């Protein structure tokens, strides 16, 4: 997908510039953008490494597991038909906690595991229908996941500080509020759809 987007940016940009006499500016733009990327990475190197180090402490000390264990009531509300002792519960909990903390590398494997377990559950429920259709739990899980759960947008803070923001972290509170709005919308939508398709 990115291949198409990127090729479009380069090719369409160059054709447009040629038609509008901006070719010299494009050459300048190419060179300065490449240099900008490197100086941005230098800023990110500090912020992202620091944050990653802190989160590693949380991971190693069992904090994620502990928080995931407390997700019971939330999961019962979101997935009323998921059996209490089903292994997907744990994977979903770890995925959500990791997403909240901004641990992408821990979230994706747990999320894929959750999908696998939800698929097995659906096969057991309806062995006669092998239609390859998403179950209600899968829809809910993915919609919540895509609604974004991240509490602290570390990368965005690094970008802002690189571009000279007076208060790079000022966005944390409002970003958390916006994330809460999108997640609440997702939860309400999922609950309504869950009831309608019953």
């Amino acid at each position, binding site marked *: 997908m990115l291949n198409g987007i990127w090729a479009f940016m380069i090719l369409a940009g160059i054709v447009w510039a040629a038609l509008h006499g901006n070719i010299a500016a494009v050459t300048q733009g190419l060179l300065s953008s490449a240099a900008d990327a490197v100086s941005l990475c230098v800023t990110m190197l500090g912020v992202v490494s620091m944050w990653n180090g802190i989160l590693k402490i949380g991971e190693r000390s069992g904090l994620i597991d502990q928080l995931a264990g407390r997700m019971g009531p939330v999961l019962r509300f979101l997935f009323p038909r998921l059996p209490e002792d089903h292994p997907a519960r744990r994977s979903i909990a770890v995925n959500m906690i990791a997403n909240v903390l901004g641990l992408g590398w821990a979230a994706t494997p747990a999320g894929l595991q959750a999908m696998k377990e939800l698929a097995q559950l659906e096969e057991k429920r309806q062995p006669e229908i092998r239609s390859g259709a998403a179950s209600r739990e899968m829809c809910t899980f993915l919609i919540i996941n895509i609604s974004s759960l991240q509490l*602290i947008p570390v990368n965005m803070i690094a970008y802002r500080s690189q571009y000279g923001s007076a208060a790079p972290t000022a966005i944390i509170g409002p970003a958390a509020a916006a994330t809460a709005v999108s997640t609440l919308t997702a939860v309400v939508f999922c609950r309504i759809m869950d009831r309608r398709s019953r």
Partner: protein
Amino acid sequence: MKVILYLSDYIIPFVIFYIVAFGMLMRRPVYDDFAEGAKEGAKTVFGILPTLIGLMTGVGVLRTSGLLDAVSGALGRWTQAAGLAPQLLPVAIVKLFSSGAATGLALDIFKNYGPDSPLGLAVSLMLSSTETVFYTMSIYYLSVNVKKTRYTLPGALLATAAGIAASIFLAGRM
């Protein structure tokens, strides 16, 4: 709004305190763990450097050619009615497919208007409160061979739209 802005100042020190204290309670070698995590973080940043160069170069071409302004200008009439700045629409659309490309466009806004400008704040919040809808859906559903995604896409797009609306509303009050 004041409480929300206070949260911005307090949350990072609080989270760091909580994690380090928790690590001490669990008798972990916290500094060793930190160093290991920081090393992984550094590797991650070095790993994204080439893609970042590619994406920022792509956006640089779009910008300097004048095409990005032309597109924003053409969209302006439609987006203004919806209360969306024309520069934000390309970011919102691209973010559905690729986080990296959307970041490239956001950095371009930072460069031209500044990260603390109304546009810069709105785009900061937008990218922090939305996910790559189509990319995430394809990765997760392909992994279990699901082809009928039922109400996942409408739900995901609705949540994303709510996040964008909230971002613009909140950015206007910062």
